[in-house]
């Protein structure tokens, strides 16, 4: 397995890119750790497949380098990169048995047949394919075929990385859970460097140790699911991760106070800022709605209540801005007007869309609320 360095990487499908918008992948400089599981997540057109294809070698980047364990592989074709790939649709040999399909990548590398048998059986057991090993692949269900594809990707223990491109799309919903569990187990057992592309946030956050959130060709944050939820580095991450997404209020900042129109909201950041386009961000689950005025609450108009069964989503109006508040099941919601508290430890401040670091939550100082 290998560490993957992306050095000043950028890609444009145009011959002479001029502006940032001409790039499918904007300048990216990251180190992906050996043995870690990464998911690339973002809306369609965000550049995640472009980045995956650059790592696999299917696409040569117009700028920058890709290094596997320090070795520049930018100009090396996919078949010489020592990677395994699993695609959206099964890629298998229909006329071969399941065993021969799984053994194929190993036989190609002239591994002794006794070692092959051992490895194939190990992978077959993990994927629950033992009973069909001698069957011809052609007669199996779509799910079983995709499991063989996964198995072919996982069978070599010497690859630098395994790349997955939406591998569970064709899988039946109730089997998805099973395969997600398998992939996680396989990762923790073999400590493989895995890169997984998906547009499904549940899949990305469940699978990965680190999620790479992308939008408009830019990597906006690489973090654990908890980081993305508690400390979005960019307003897009706050919006995209979580349902409903984070609330944002345009504001100006002055010594620990965010001014939203006439309102003053206390924040945990006393730095003297001279920044443009500031926004105060807070997640719907952290806002506190009261029926009577409390210290440091602000009067809001209740516009609409969506009862989702296990919680209610309240849409409220504050100083001309719309906010969503997530209220736990069983809590009363005031009629017409309410008083809204902004716990300072859950407020994040943004300038031009990016997190102002001094406003971010510091786990060493505070315990999150349960």
């Amino acid at each position, binding site marked *: 397995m290998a560490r993957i360095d992306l050095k000043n990487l950028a890609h444009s499908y145009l011959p002479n890119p001029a502006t940032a918008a001409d790039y499918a992948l904007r300048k990216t400089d990251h180190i992906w750790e050996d043995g870690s599981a990464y998911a690339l997540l973002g*809306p*369609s057109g965000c550049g995640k497949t472009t980045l995956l294809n650059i790592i696999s070698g299917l696409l040569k980047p117009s700028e920058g380098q890709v290094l596997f364990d320090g070795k520049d592989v930018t100009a090396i074709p996919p078949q010489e990169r020592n990677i395994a790939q699993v695609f959206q649709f099964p890629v298998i040999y229909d006329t071969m048995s399941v065993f021969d399909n799984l053994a194929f990548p190993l036989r190609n590398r002239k591994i002794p047949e006794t070692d092959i048998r051992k490895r194939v059986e190990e992978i077959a057991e993990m994927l629950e394919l033992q009973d069909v090993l001698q069957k011809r692949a052609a007669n199996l269900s779509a799910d079983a075929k995709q499991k063989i594809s996964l198995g072919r990707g996982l069978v070599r223990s010497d690859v630098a990385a395994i790349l997955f491109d939406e591998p569970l799309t064709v899988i039946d919903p109730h089997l998805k*859970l099973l395969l*997600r*569990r398998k992939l*996680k*187990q396989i990762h*923790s057992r073999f400590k493989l460097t895995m890169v997984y592309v998906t*547009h*499904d*946030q*549940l899949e990305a*956050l*469940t699978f990965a140790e680190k999620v790479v959130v992308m939008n408009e060709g830019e990597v906006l944050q690489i973090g654990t*699911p*908890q980081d*993305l*939820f*508690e400390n979005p580095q960019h307003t897009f991450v706050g*919006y*995209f*991760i*979580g*349902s*409903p*997404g984070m609330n944002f209020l345009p504001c100006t900042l002055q010594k620990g106070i965010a001014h939203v129109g006439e309102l003053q909201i206390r924040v945990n950041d006393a730095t003297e800022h001279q920044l443009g386009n500031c926004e105060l961000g807070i*997640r719907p*689950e952290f806002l506190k709605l009261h029926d009577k005025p409390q210290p440091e609450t602000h009067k809001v108009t209740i516009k*609409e209540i*969506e*009862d*989702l*069964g*296990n*919680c209610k989503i309240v*849409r409220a109006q504050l100083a001309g801005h719309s906010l969503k508040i997530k209220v*736990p*099941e*069983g809590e009363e919601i005031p009629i017409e007007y309410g008083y809204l508290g902004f716990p300072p430890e859950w407020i994040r401040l943004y300038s031009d869309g990016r997190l102002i670091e001094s406003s971010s939550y510091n786990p060493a100082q505070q315990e*999150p609320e*349960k």
Partner: protein
Amino acid sequence: MAMVIENVTKLVGKECHIQDISLQFEPGTFNILLGRTLSGKTSLMRLMAGLDRPTKGRVLMNGKDLTGISVRKRDVAMVYQQFINYPSMNVYKNIASPLRLAKVAANEIDRKVHEVAEMLHIENLLDRLPAELSGGQQQRTAIARALIKDSELLLLDEPLVNLDYKLREDLRTEMREIFKRRQSIVIYATTEPLEALTLGGNTAVLYEGQLEQFGPTVDVYQNPQTTRIAQAFSDPAMNFVNGNIEENQLQLGNTPKVPLQKHLCNLAPDNYQFGMRPSHLQLERKTAADIEFQMNVNLAEISGSETFVHLDRQESTWIVQQQGIHNYQIDEQVKVYVDPTQLYIFDLDGHLVGSPENVVEELT
């Protein structure tokens, strides 16, 4: 004045797609058909629209029998899962097309196109072609075209299913606003309980071509008449455990017996199936009366703001829905706590006997 579906059955070959369904929808109401794939949602809509003819039964609109009358002669609009627009027409012409066919005056068409385009936030895209739009914008165009006519009947068959989840979330909230002010009968098919709850109105739960329950959405959610309805109308699915009540004590599975409280007190001694919503299960003890289960973590799924912990114990599998992000290892042992006051009670045939006190007022 309403649409009445009267003992409608639809057979295709020997297969029964719709089995003896009767329903009534009032003008100005929003109605959801909730059920899994192949439960009969699309089949029922096609019968309502007049795209298919029922094998038995009648479809009446405002007292008039429409069974067998072609869709062309009915006042109906439909939105499908796939984004269907006229590829050679721009957004304006796509939206205007039903009014043009109806020979409405040009200035009236213009006014209405701008009105619905504004409502769906596509007023700046009017001169684009469908191919130049994102999936979300294409579906907004299709919805605008369905809305412009003020049809008596508006059918939407899983209109958001092919959109990215964030777009789905945004449009779902808007839908509620859009349909609020209409006089049409709106019928909306979905597989997702969350979508039904967000949209409100009434919900009809379908299962294998049969109508299981129909009523105000929140009522159906709070008082599912059978375990099957509870399963269909819970996402993640409701958890179940067998148990019994005897001598004023409750026993769930093989856990220690506990005294009866609240809504459980009225139950006759017997064996029951107890249902627990994933959001009602806890991984920390909340009250002394909580019943403790030892379980094994199958997988923790993370949605962004919530964690779904899949658990198993002997042959049963449960899901716990937690707010926020929590980490669990596969095959970690955890303790799960059940608050008896939040139990749904079903008899062994799966019929609802009681539901938690905060919703128990009237069982029909």
